[in-house]
């Protein structure tokens, strides 16, 4: 956040259910706004060019890579990060499935992965395995090999049983 600080613009948006107003520089990314100005740290920076998906958040219910969106663009929007999907301080069913199935290891990709999967399930209640794979293909994970993540999403959708795996014929 350099020179642009001199020409900041005030944006107003809803962040995780709360109305926020913040001054942002014109060139700063939403990821920077969230992390550096607002202290919302769950979106991570893994590549800063939209390749890895670890900065995924939702704008008006659609997942975006917050390193590819400018902070000024969310003026008037509803932004949701991982911090906003807990339900009364409890894990969402998807988070619980991630916990039950070890669908994370180092945990760095987990916030972005859960955001993408949350959007996926909101748009497609009963996805197939292939649809889950397609839906999560923009979120990189180097630890798990993805299978436990895919299974957690399918379990949350009720496509596979708790602890079970999808049978392929």
């Amino acid at each position, binding site marked *: 956040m350099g020179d642009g600080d001199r020409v900041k613009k005030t944006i107003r948006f809803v962040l995780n259910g709360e109305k926020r107003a913040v001054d942002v520089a014109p060139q700063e990314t939403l990821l920077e706004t969230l992390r550096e100005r607002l202290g919302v740290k769950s979106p991570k920076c*893994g590549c800063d060019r939209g390749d890895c998906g670890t900065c995924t958040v939702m704008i008006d219910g659609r997942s975006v890579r917050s390193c590819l969106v400018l902070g000024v663009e969310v003026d008037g929007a509803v932004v949701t990060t991982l911090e906003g999907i807990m339900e009364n301080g409890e*894990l969402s069913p998807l988070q619980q499935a991630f*916990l039950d199935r070890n669908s*994370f*290891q180092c945990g*760095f990709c987990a916030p972005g992965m859960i955001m993408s999967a949350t959007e996926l399930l909101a748009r497609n209640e009963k996805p197939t395995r292939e649809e889950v794979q397609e839906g999560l293909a923009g979120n990189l*994970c*180097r630890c798990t090999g993805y*299978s436990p993540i895919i299974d957690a999403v399918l379990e949350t959708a009720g496509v596979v049983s708790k602890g079970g795996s999808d049978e*392929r014929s």
Partner: protein
Amino acid sequence: MSGHKFIGKSVVRVDGKAKLTGAAAFVDDLEFGPGLLHAVIIESPHAYAKIKKIDFAKALGVEGVVKVVTGKEFPYRFGLYMHDRYVFAQDHVRFVGEQVAAVIARTPAVAKEAARLVKVEYEVLKPVLDVETALEEDARLIHPELGNYHHVPWFFPKKDTNIAHLRKVRKGDAEQGFREADHVFDDTYMVPRYAHCSIETHGAIGLFDHSRRLTVWAASQSPHTQRHLFAEALAPLGLKHKDVRVIAPSVGGGFGGKAGVSMEILAAALATTVQGSPVKVHWTREQEFYNTYQRQGVVAKMRVGVKNDGTITALEQKLYWDAGAYVEYGANVVNAAGLSASGPYRIPNVHIDSVCVYTNLPPGGPYRGFGYSEFLFGLESHFNEVAKKLGIDPVEFRRKNAICTGDVLNYGGKMNPSGLLECIDKVAREIDWGKRRVSDDPRKAIGKGFALFWKAPAMPPNASSTAFLKFNEDGSLNILVSAMEIGQGFLTVMAQIAAEVLSVPPEKIRVETPDTDRNPYEWQTVASHITWGTGNAVKKAAIDAREQIFDIVSSALGQPRESLYLDDEQVRSRSDAGFGLPLRDFVINGIMMKDGTFRGGPIIGRGMFMPEFASALSDPETSQGGKPNVHYTVGASAIEIEVDRETGRITIPKVVLGVDCGKVLNPDLLKGQVTGGMVQGLATVLYEDMRFDGKGRLLNPNFTDYKIPTALDTPEEIVSIFVEHEQPDGPFGARGVGEHTMIPAAPIIANAIEDALGIRIRSMPITAEKIALAIRDS
């Protein structure tokens, strides 16, 4: 061994909620307030050059710039196993991307802008970019001072050459072994360089405060080793180890890349130049590719002597490692691979030269598998070819020659308990070995591949682990260790071990990542040794606490000590069925006597483990005489693939991995290692490799051009098989396993392609393009 309450159970991860809610803080998430400074590094654009002049006057003039630092400030060599590198380049740069100077500024943007104004004049030298050139008679020396470098006693650098280390293994009489053979088969295999690709890049923040105390927060696999290297490298500034502190928050993937000291030294060193202010160095994805450690490339020339019945009589392996510009860590990869380059086979006559070669490419270093993936690609491919030429089934060939418990290892020691044969049989059965499937689609060829694997921890012989264990008022406890949770589930397994000894459920045990000031010593989280080493230390700490508990209860309450045992968070007695004293009643406050005085007090356990039987000293000409490896974990793996004959594209219906890592402490976590490791390994053979141009510049330092797997690239089915021949000196019988699961991936693919198409591909990666071209040319 049955009757365990927590060991062998798929206990839920103790770090799960933190990681799934965003509560887990990674190094970039830590806040340092408005005083935080940011450093941007000026890097060499040349693979080899002499630095003539650095002019940073203009950069210093920019508002917000605090300092410009060059190699002049830190003229000291350092390194893990060999002191061959500097904080910043001195008179020469030796790879593209090497750090030459740093601009420290109030904001990242100002630092970046000012860095562009630093002018460095170079005299460009012709770089040495491959091992063949580096080994030529009149090759340009990359380290003319090599003969003077300080190094561990088990390295053998060749001065006035580019050979930084040569590990020779001579077992039996190879010449005699080849004479006894009915056939001798030669071949050469090549493996390129690879990147770890942790999703979190490296980052470190250093603070040298006004009391001259240096604290470094780092994404780290090696907090204590980093503290030691910082103290050692910066000793001329008068720093003692007690003044240096490393704090390691959650780390976003390691795979070896965050072991040792790479860019972290910059934060430590730069902090000393701006006393009183924290300074942050954070690698971009691009820097993550070219200036941390890379997995080294290797050219493997091998020769195998066999009898007509398939018995291997002799093996010669010549491994030429492209170790890069600095080998302070990578030379030990070369060393470890050399000691074990026979693979898990019973071979009476072995001749191995593992050669660590300096080149003007980025520094090589540790990567999950530590050299074993690299040499096993060639060896396991070659053994398949040998079996085929002899008309012997490749699984039968392996079974016949597989190493067994008690067999003599390459350096003379005895093989530890090993269920390799059982792994071979179970894996072969699971993949339906011997049954050929034919696709309905004429474009698709189906094939199966098989390979064995092994690996030992590569550690100094005295690599140690320690643990403190503290009880709390409610009978819950905190365990302090300094090994790192890098995703594998280490914290959970440590909780399970203490839980088993103390009969306290894992959910009442907190284990977190370390601060070297508070947590006791650990060498490093590498080598797949911490379940074993740190696990032993935690078990000892728990036993120490238990013994204190029994002492207090027997002396204060007169219960016979030998009758006491722990059950369900209580002390109970075999001789007094009615006795049950909850731990929470006394583990902090002690036991009240009739007169109102107390006995006992807070229970604190300590545990230490060092493998006192290991030794790295051996005959440099043969490697005979020492005991460099504490144990080998072995296994077998098989795959079924479908190859599209037109595009070369491979799909994987099924892959199987069977491993004997002794007692399985947490089956779900182990399964996670198999699935994740296998996919990472498959990526090295199917998609990834580092590409350099003729000037030593990395062409693909990003995820667009260096493709790691996505959710679309998972095999349809990954089957894990666990065989449990317990390790006598492991906690509850466990051995290491973290790295092993990616090791067989490359040869099973190469062998399956050969099975499907009759084409042998001898260089990695084996991309769809390479297969399609090979089909066209066949």
